[in-house]
């Protein structure tokens, strides 16, 4: 929560500074070298491999576990597809791309900034931060009132790290491995699905 709020603050300060006109146009803005993004993707891998969680998960993997992240993907895409049908001003391609962050706001918005543009990147950033914050706030209620895996589903990619403590606390320790596994699968899917979705529909 702290980090997502810090991120939001950094982003807001950037907007304010840009709006103030204090920065001369000569300063390179959002067109960060692709190299920086590649480094980021590599470091995400280092984080997954280095935490030891991946190896632990591989030992306990079973059929039911695989269904959880798959249901998150399918449900997320069906949900935004329904939205795009109901509100045509929100394009299908754009909403799918923004939703494909599954709460992983940093990686998804940076990829979108590179492949599409700043506006959609901002939409994705806010939509995914929102998903993470809602997960943190509603985990206790959802686990108790809906079903135990509800916060795991809501948390998407974030359940492998940022929302792991709170989600396992309320879903139950017996679901901790599912939580990590689902988060890892969804995290790995972000750098694959977002460019794939953006490749449809061409340039706007």
């Amino acid at each position, binding site marked *: 929560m702290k980090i997502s709020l810090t991120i939001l603050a950094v982003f807001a300060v950037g*907007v304010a500074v840009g709006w103030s006109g204090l920065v001369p146009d000569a300063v390179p803005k*959002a067109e960060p070298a692709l190299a920086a993004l590649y480094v980021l993707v590599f470091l995400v891998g*280092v984080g997954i491999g280095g935490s030891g969680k991946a190896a632990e998960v591989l030992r306990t993997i079973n059929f039911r576990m695989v269904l959880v992240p798959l249901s998150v993907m399918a449900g997320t895409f069906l949900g935004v597809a329904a939205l795009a049908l109901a509100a045509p001003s929100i394009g299908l391609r754009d909403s799918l791309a923004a939703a494909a962050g599954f709460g992983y706001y940093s990686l998804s918005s940076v990829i979108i900034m590179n492949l599409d543009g700043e506006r959609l990147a901002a939409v994705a950033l806010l939509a995914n931060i929102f998903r993470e914050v809602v997960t943190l706030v509603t985990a206790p209620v959802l686990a108790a009132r809906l079903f135990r895996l509800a916060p795991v589903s809501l948390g998407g990619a974030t359940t492998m790290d940022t929302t792991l403590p709170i989600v396992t606390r309320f879903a139950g320790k017996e679901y901790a491995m599912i939580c990590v596994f689902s988060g890892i699968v969804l995290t790995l899917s972000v750098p694959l699905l977002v460019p794939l979705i953006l490749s449809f529909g061409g340039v706007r």
Partner: protein
Amino acid sequence: MLNAAAIVVLILGGIAAGVGLRGREKVIRAADRIALGAVFVLLFLLGLDLGSRPEVIRSIGKVGLEAGMISTAAMLGSLAATSVVWALWFRRGGHED
């Protein structure tokens, strides 16, 4: 262009490197910090760029509303789909093995 093959190679390479580095807490933590720092810089630049475009600032309410709607639709869909998995394979499926 960002290409999928490069991303797969990088992530898998990163995981392999991470596994190789296991136990070396300091290096892992440094990698984590660099990643977070990169994210801060990139998102600050994104904000800077958006802020300096008057047309975006004028539509900032729309951007926020769109984000909220996409996020809400994504979460509701996700909950609905996982509830099916829960009902079919977990609740009736007995205990965690």
